[in-house]
């Protein structure tokens, strides 16, 4: 095999892999972006997605280390493998960005989202809502004679499923936090 017949997409002995995987299917990836907690840093990240036409499915941000001035931005995004690689590279060159981790490819990870659901109703519907909330391990955090506010945590899919069930039972209002995610296991790279 001549040196020119390098298999496309393969990295025979590269320390890092910048080679595109040549796929054209749309993938969903969860990115953890560790940033310097300074004014405007969120605007830089969001502006990057808006300016370059990338998708944001979910975005969560909060300070995680007060003394170290670090915030963690969790972004769920979609795109072809080439676009995902590009998003990570673009995020990586923002000056106050310390680290970019693709939790979808860096090994198993856990994702959770918290949501609050206001469900109004009386009679059977109200009883059914409470019963389903119990099945989903949702907590009642507020109640009137005509309404409940449920608090539920889980994967986005679980929350979607709960929302679908609540809709015919008098769903009035939803607040969702967006996804928070961490890699599984004892190693901490973030």
């Amino acid at each position, binding site marked *: 095999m001549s040196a020119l017949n390098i298999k496309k997409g393969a990295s025979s002995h590269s*320390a890092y892999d910048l080679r595109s995987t040549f796929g054209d299917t749309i993938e969903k990836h969860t990115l953890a972006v560790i940033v310097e907690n300074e004014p405007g840093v969120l605007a830089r990240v969001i*502006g990057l997605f808006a300016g370059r036409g990338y998708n944001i499915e979910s975005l969560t941000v909060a300070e995680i280390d007060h003394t170290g001035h670090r915030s963690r931005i969790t972004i769920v995004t979609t795109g072809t493998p080439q676009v995902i690689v590009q998003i990570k590279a673009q995020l990586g060159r923002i000056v*106050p960005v310390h680290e970019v981790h693709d939790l979808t490819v860096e090994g198993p990870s856990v994702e959770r989202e918290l949501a609050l659901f206001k469900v109004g109703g009386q009679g059977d519907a109200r009883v059914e809502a409470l019963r389903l909330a119990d099945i989903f391990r949702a907590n009642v955090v507020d109640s009137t004679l005509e309404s409940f506010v449920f608090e539920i945590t889980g994967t986005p899919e679980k929350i979607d499923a709960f929302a679908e069930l609540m809709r015919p039972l008098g769903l009035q209002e939803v607040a969702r936090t967006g996804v928070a995610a961490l890699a599984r296991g004892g190693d901490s790279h973030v």
Partner: protein
Amino acid sequence: MTKMMTGAKMVVQALIDQGVEVVFGYPGGAVLPIYDEIFQQNHIQHVLVRHEQGAVHAAEGYARSTGKPGVALVTSGPGATNAVTGLTDALMDSIPIIVLTGQVPTFMIGTDGFQEADTVGITRPCTKHNWLVKDTDRLANTIHEAFHVAMSGRPGPVLIDIPKDVQFAKGTYSEKAKRTSHYAPQVKGDINMITELAEAMATAKRPVFYTGGGVINSGPAASQLLRELVEATGFPITSTLMGLGCYPASGPAWLGMVGMHGLYQANMAMHGCDLMINIGARFDDRITGRIDAFSPKSQKAHIDIDASSINKVIRVDMPILGDVANVLEDLLKVWKAQGGKTDKEALAKWWKQIEAWKATDCLGFTQDGPIIRPQHAISRLEALTKDHDRYITTEVGQHQMWAAQYMGFEAPNRWMTSGGLGTMGYGTPASIGVQMAHRDALVINVAGEASWLMNMQEMGTAMQYRLPVKQFILNNERLGMVRQWQQLLHGERYSQSWSEALPDLVKLAEAFGAKGIRCDNPDDLDEAIREMIAYDGPVIFDCLVEKHENCFPMIPSGNAHNEMLLANAQVQGGITGTGAVLV
């Protein structure tokens, strides 16, 4: 050593500590304290421009011709918004500049105060990074950090927004060394991938070096190493508009510029190669043409300091993340250690093919008749100035492409042109920035009359500082490139693409106190150019040229490299289909 001083003094002190010699700027209410400090010192020279856009382009010209960062100082609000085009231009072309803007005092921010604008918000997408400094104690460090960010990794523009109360307040000045930045891009390339490339070079049958502005930005050592590599391998080399000068135009392996208006042999070599070695270029759409037909049979290596440039547009087989000079040094070592082998037989055949392409003489033209052809004007300018210590800036359009085609650049940092953004009005202020850095050099702005008018107010700056910049204007009374596209693409409907009521450029020169020269006769051209060169002061050269000349070769939008138009005769039916929507 720490010292207490006002924020305004800190700005000046930090610039001095960073080795800044020249600042291009324009005063206003929100930067008056800084101007007061500039008044009271002699270390930094301030150049008063006539428009803030001019200040930023001048800083770019200064940076590109010296390799040092350029600095501009403007006021809040309109001062800052006028700087936006220059910032975007510098971002697209990776030019290290530091722009300091005044801001309304911190307690007024957000109240729609007089000359208030959300400067960091507006300039966030057009800077590499920017800062709003709300505390005088942090000002000096921020300025030092700004220089570090502008110059590290892929260079670019940065902006520091300084509210007026921060300029007045006293704080602790911190020295340059006290930088705590985590920002440190990777410069060393992966040696395994470099080895892979060296192996590919040893067996390549039809290789080509495709170089770009990254070579220039990497510093003179990168250009030197590139020359060594080209000489050692005997591979042909082409360059983007941004990279002209990184390999000498008189060198034996030089193919000329690549791209939309690149030379036939360069584009054909890019299309037909089996190994493309991209060094500090970014597969810009002016280079690639149609993506799915771009160099279909080649393995591609890409050396770039910016990971986001790799696989952005063109998927490559050998990505090497690192600084050009650093990587080329390793590549040369590895390739030599492998025995420095190339496939000489195949290379000879490849060169034979390239010579056949060269024989088409794609830049050939005949100067006949009484009207100066623009190609002739540039050719004569080249012939009469190439032996001078010469720097060329340009505006944007046909004249820019002709300059790139017909002029030869032997060294890096000699060619300043707005590549990525394509900013009309770039050349005049850029020429001023270049001349500030090289007082005794011959600095020529090759311009079209339409572009030139966009920042012609900067002639006042040239006069004030006795900068003998030569404005060589190819005057076709048209927006030549727009007209060319309308001819090719829009059924020869020349919508708004000619200039009515042009000023008399000779009288305009005289009004500024400069020298005006007009030439409309091919027989007088050489003498007129000599007169321009000889004149010790700014010159506006009004070169009246053929009004309907088109710039060839041309790869029409949406076409591949081997589908070049070489002359008007080949222009039939215009551009249709998907190509028509491209710019």
